[in-house]
């Protein structure tokens, strides 16, 4: 049951214009305002503070008891967009985000990789809403650069232990019965920089190898049936990309038949080139490397394939020096995105604490949030839809009294698995691993309002 913050504890001023501090205006400035010089107000508030702090400006004027204050210039002086003619339809044949949103970009983490064609760009989770990732902000991971492939020349082959090895064009695939399903994709190395200690400042870099889309394509099971795969000996499939790396990944036949999709679309449009245009594998619940992009081939076999990225990378180094292999499933995990590391709260008072939870094994059953570093927990509200192997948005009310505290979220999936603490993971896997860190994330909120990345276990 989601709990609601008691109404009575919400401070009375919530929702009102916030008071500004003393000394915001000098005596001379107040005198100017009192003399009716509204230009001055506009100058101070609009340019020095820019639009984002106009609320504070108005509050300051009110707080200063300015008798000449008539109101917010953003209301009193009609702006150009209210008094002029706007742009026509189709001015942008393919619409783009507002120019005010340019701060939200996919970004590389400095020093993480040395070659940008074999690197990763992180999704700005700190600025996203709901559960769907805009296509242009979907995280990227390429192993040998990305391409924009001519879809009329792309071919998809199924061979190996099948009765009829077949070749499909995109025309063929797009004629077949399709499904559209929402699933998260998370790189196995997400949060990998934090195994030993805190390493990066914001949720973009701690958790940004994570995205979620509605994918459309043909169930892999349909295609395997169409080729007459060997149901006795065919225990594994190999998925192979058509880029230079020709990325190869082994997937169990159980998984392949369960819910894997040979997908050509994301969020209502064709895949973006960076995400595998025109064809990729969608392997729900499995780490992102298995979602082979620019998919050219599926081979059915009776043994795993031991590819480079199953033997040298995406393996878990254990304290005894062995590596665990084929640890593909992304376990239950969650993170608070607002407020999160690198952010600064405006002031004391009410906040909607919001975050994301997901599990590669099924649905999210519950998310608890702690405001005291894990000593006490309250259950957050899960926003619909709550889907299997899909991001789930959670929200919970919080009134910040201005004192330092540590925020955490802890997800539980429908298998009953509880998201672990970092010390529990380290007790089993040590501190030298890179992959599959699904630990509870802690954000420290300082008295200054700044939020920073910390570990407390």
């Amino acid at each position, binding site marked *: 049951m989601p709990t609601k913050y008691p109404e009575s504890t919400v401070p009375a001023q919530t929702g009102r214009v916030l008071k500004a501090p003393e000394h915001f205006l000098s005596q001379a400035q107040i005198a100017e305002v009192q003399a009716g010089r509204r230009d001055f107000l506009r100058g101070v508030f609009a340019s020095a503070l820019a639009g984002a702090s106009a609320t504070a400006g108005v509050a300051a004027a009110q707080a200063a008891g300015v008798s000449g204050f008539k109101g917010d210039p953003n209301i009193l002086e009609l702006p150009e967009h209210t008094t002029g003619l706007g742009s026509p339809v189709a001015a942008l044949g393919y619409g783009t985000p507002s120019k005010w949103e340019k701060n939200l970009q996919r970004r590389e983490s*400095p020093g993480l990789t040395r070659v940008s064609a074999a690197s990763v760009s992180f999704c700005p989770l700190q600025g996203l809403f709901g559960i769907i990732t805009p296509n242009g902000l979907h995280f990227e991971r390429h192993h040998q650069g990305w391409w924009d492939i001519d879809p009329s020349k792309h071919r998809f082959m199924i061979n190996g232990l099948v009765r009829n090895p077949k070749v499909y064009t995109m025309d063929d695939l797009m004629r077949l019965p399709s499904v559209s399903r929402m699933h998260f994709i998370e790189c196995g190395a997400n949060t990998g920089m934090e195994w030993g200690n805190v390493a990066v400042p914001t949720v973009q870099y701690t958790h940004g190898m994570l995205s979620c889309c509605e994918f459309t394509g043909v169930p892999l099971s349909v295609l395997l049936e169409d080729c007459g795969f060997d149901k006795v000996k065919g225990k594994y499939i190999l998925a192979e990309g058509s880029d230079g790396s020709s990325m190869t990944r082994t997937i169990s036949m159980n998984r392949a038949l369960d819910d894997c999709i040979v997908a050509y679309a994301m969020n209502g449009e064709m895949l973006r080139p960076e995400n595998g245009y025109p064809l990729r594998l969608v392997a729900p619940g499995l780490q992102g490397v298995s979602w082979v992009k620019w998919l050219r081939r599926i081979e059915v076999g009776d043994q795993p394939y031991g590819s480079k990225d199953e033997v040298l990378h995406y393996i878990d180094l254990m304290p005894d020096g062995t590596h665990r292999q084929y640890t593909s499933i992304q376990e239950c995990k969650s993170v608070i995105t607002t407020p999160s590391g690198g952010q600064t709260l405006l002031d004391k008072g009410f906040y909607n604490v919001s975050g994301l939870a997901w599990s590669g094994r099924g649905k999210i059953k519950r998310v608890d949030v702690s405001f005291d570093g894990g000593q006490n927990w309250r259950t957050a509200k899960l926003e619909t839809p709550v889907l299997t192997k899909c991001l789930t948005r959670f929200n919970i009310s919080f009134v910040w009294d201005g004192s330092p505290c540590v925020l955490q979220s802890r997800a539980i999936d429908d298998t009953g698995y509880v998201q672990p603490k970092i010390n529990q993971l380290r007790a089993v896997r040590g501190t030298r691993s890179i992959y599959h860190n699904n630990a509870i994330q802690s954000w420290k909120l300082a008295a200054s309002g700044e939020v920073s990345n910390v570990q407390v276990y």
Partner: protein
Amino acid sequence: MGAFIINVPANVSLFPRRRESNFVEFRKCLQTWIPACAGMTMLVLFLGIVGNALAQSAPQKFPGVGRAATPAEVAKWDIDVRPDLKGLPKGSGSVARGQQVWEAKCESCHGAFGESNEVFTPIVGGTTKADIESGRVANLRRADFPQRTTLMKLAHLSSLWDYINRAMPWNAPKSLSADDVYAVTAYILHLGDILPADFVLSDANMAQVQNRLPNRNGLQKYTPKWDVRGKGDVTNVACMQNCKQEMKITSNLPDHARDAHGNLAEQHRLIGPVRGADTTKPAPTAPLLARAALPAVAVAPTPRGDPPPAVPSGAALARKHNCTACHAQASKLVGPSYAEVAAKYANDANAVSKMMEKIKIGGSGAWGVIPMPPHPTMTDAELKALAEWALRGGK
């Protein structure tokens, strides 16, 4: 509807070696009415009730979709080599030949001895003769060992061969012959003191060489995180109250790393409940609104790769400002055509500045009583571009 769909098992073929749908066959049955079809007819009549379900239960479910792959096509793409060496092509290459290929195509990124850490992580290093005996790399147990090299981790020789064959060299993948892939593989193993300098690696001895890999026993297939019904390896309990006596911060970012990821103010939205921290300055002491002076809001940066803002073309400006609603290329609409405008001002030396002024302030009279709206927001550069375009007759 779904409840009526009858699935004929894929291996029960009603009409073997025929591509026609059941429905076509059914019609043929009716036409010829041979006794052998009678029983089938009853079945098909029953199936006919569910209409389209017929097609789904046919031996070929999606007629016309896809085609058989040719042997040549399969051979060209099916290049993977498994740990049991299935897929390995015939061929051989010496350590000496491998050195030649290495120096020509590999050394620039990976270093002369495969040890370079400049472009990619090192391939060679960290393994010992004792590791070759045991099949376990001792340095993998050491927490203080700085880096895990490829040879320290490599458990299957096939993985190395397959990867070089499919993805190397970096900027020209799949350009090496099979023999050269054997040669480069041999040279790397020689650099790791696994093979002697006079060795020739081939499809015939790959299995023996596999038994010399220093970490051949260091990989464990871990099924709980592979199986659909597996379980995680860590158990946490969802305690709700008084869970931990004392909260202690065990790790945080040092102050000197405050701006290691750039100015975080420029990586956050300009509105909402929070702002990105201005990491060009030391950590503040009070919340944003409580500070005496708010920091200037970060100006949205031009995304990397965006061209600098240019003045749009006259045509684009005409579209943007709805000029085309009243002015056409050649025919008079509400206002004069661009051709008419061009003709009228053809010999006027001050035409551009006059036109800029007219567009800016608007007005009526020159061409009729219907006024042209003013365009006060256009910059001089835009006005000039639009005026010149109009005076060229909208070209």
